[in-house]
């Protein structure tokens, strides 16, 4: 949209309305295209990229309501104005609930259509300005986070690198006591680095960008790989790992890395917050349009007051510095975001002292919703 010269699409089955709109709006300097039914209208819409669409609600074939919904779905910032007969004011209200910005009753005068289009253009201008502002703010925020995180990481990385050199014996002999202490320093700084990268991942997480790289993923494979990876931890804690899956589980659309992170995170919790001789079970199944994952254990369980908050950032059930199981309190909040980025849902049920079950559902056919 440059200056006051806007691109306007008119969809109406009455030739007289199309022609009069075109004449009035072209005279005002706008670029106008028209279509006599909904299907043609949507075709023109996709190629013409209008700023404003005027749609008749009552047309044979595809209804005006359907057109509104499709346009709203593909670009909610396009201003939609409904043209309607006297008898359909109530449906005009209905249309506005579906994203229409305004309506104009038939018949209308040239002044009326000019005024309503001018108002619509003002609306469009505000939409575009605020959108540009939002994108710019987001870009600045992300760059800030990346730079700050780099500044924080660099000295830690250099320090750890020296410690590795010393521990590797490349800087001469050290006493076994000193070695032990340096070992601890190394571990503590690595924990800090790990915390930083988790926080960074969370702060810069962009579900839209992630969805661009989605591919067909077999959750059976992800679960198998995750269990394989966690086997040493389970053996150390004397926890048996069980996998239950059908042979014909359909694939879902997703990111292999992120889905792996979800499984690793929840299964490792089931192992860590458990007691020797316990079990952790992963069960996969298909139900309706979804693939379900249940990860349960017979471990320590989570009491009701904690259960409500386990998906909160930095929340830890045992937040003491000397807690037997260490963590950042970010694991499950990351899991929740990753699940939601796949269009899925996660919840947890638990009985204190008896165990916990996480249930995750993923849609088989994922389509990312555009944010309005």
């Amino acid at each position, binding site marked *: 949209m440059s200056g006051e010269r806007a691109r306007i699409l008119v969809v109406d089955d009455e030739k007289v309305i199309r022609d009069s709109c075109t004449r009035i709006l072209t005279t005002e300097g706008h670029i106008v295209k028209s279509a006599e039914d909904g299907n043609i209208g949507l075709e023109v819409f996709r190629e013409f990229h209008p700023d404003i669409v005027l749609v008749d609600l009552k047309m044979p074939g595809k209804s005006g309501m359907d057109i509104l919904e499709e346009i709203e779905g593909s670009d909610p910032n396009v201003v939609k104005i409904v043209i309607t007969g006297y008898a359909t004011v109530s449906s005009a209200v209905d249309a506005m609930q579906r994203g229409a910005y305004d309506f104009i009753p038939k018949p209308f005068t040239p002044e009326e259509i000019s005024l309503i289009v001018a108002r619509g253009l003002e609306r469009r201008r505000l939409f575009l300005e605020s959108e540009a502002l939002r994108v710019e703010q987001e870009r600045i925020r992300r760059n800030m986070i990346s730079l700050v995180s*780099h500044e924080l*990481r660099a000295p*830690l*990385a250099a320090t750890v*690198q*020296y410690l590795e050199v010393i521990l590797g014996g490349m800087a001469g002999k050290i006493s076994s006591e000193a070695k032990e202490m340096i070992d601890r320093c190394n571990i503590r700084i690595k924990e800090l*680095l790990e915390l930083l990268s988790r926080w*960074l*991942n969370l702060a810069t997480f962009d579900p839209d960008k992630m969805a661009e*790289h989605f591919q067909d993923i077999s959750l059976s494979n992800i679960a198998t790989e995750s269990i394989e990876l966690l086997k040493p931890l389970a053996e150390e804690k004397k926890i048996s790992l069980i996998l239950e899956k059908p042979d014909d589980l359909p694939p879902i659309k997703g990111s292999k890395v992120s889905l792996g992170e979800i499984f690793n995170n929840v299964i490792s919790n089931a192992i860590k917050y458990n007691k020797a001789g316990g079990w952790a079970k992963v069960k996969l199944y298909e139900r309706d349009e979804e693939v379900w994952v249940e990860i349960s254990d017979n471990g320590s369980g989570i009491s009701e007051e904690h259960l409500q908050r386990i998906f909160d950032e930095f929340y830890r059930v045992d937040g003491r510095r000397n807690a037997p199981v260490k963590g950042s309190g970010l694991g499950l909040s990351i899991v929740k975001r990753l699940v939601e980025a796949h269009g899925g849902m996660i919840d947890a049920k638990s009985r204190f002292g008896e165990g916990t079950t996480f249930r995750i559902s993923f849609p088989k056919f994922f389509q990312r919703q555009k944010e309005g």
Partner: protein
Amino acid sequence: MTQKKRILIVDDDPDFAAAIQKILTSADYHVDVAGNVNDGMKAIKEEIPDLILLDVMMERYDDGFNMCYDLKHDDRYRGIPIIIVTAVTEVTGLKFDPQTDGEYLEADDYVQKPISPEALLTKVARLI
């Protein structure tokens, strides 16, 4: 006696570079260090190294990416193996993704800062 293999470290963090240099010299490599892209290019023009360890964020946040791209698109230098060494993980706002951007950058390998001496030496030995 065969000549020592030459490795060039391009990194603006002198401490990190010194630590890496220590690891590599202990494995009997000859190691030079450059603190920025210009000095790095100067060193390469003087004598082509057998391998380059390249930092990403130096004076500019994508210096390392650009230098890597330039080297891999220059007939004189494209044969030098490059290992990108970075504290920038894959999901930052800088969009560094070894799977997709890696192909575009044509680096030979990637390591994350910090790195264990064994892992670094293994990666270097594989390429040199």
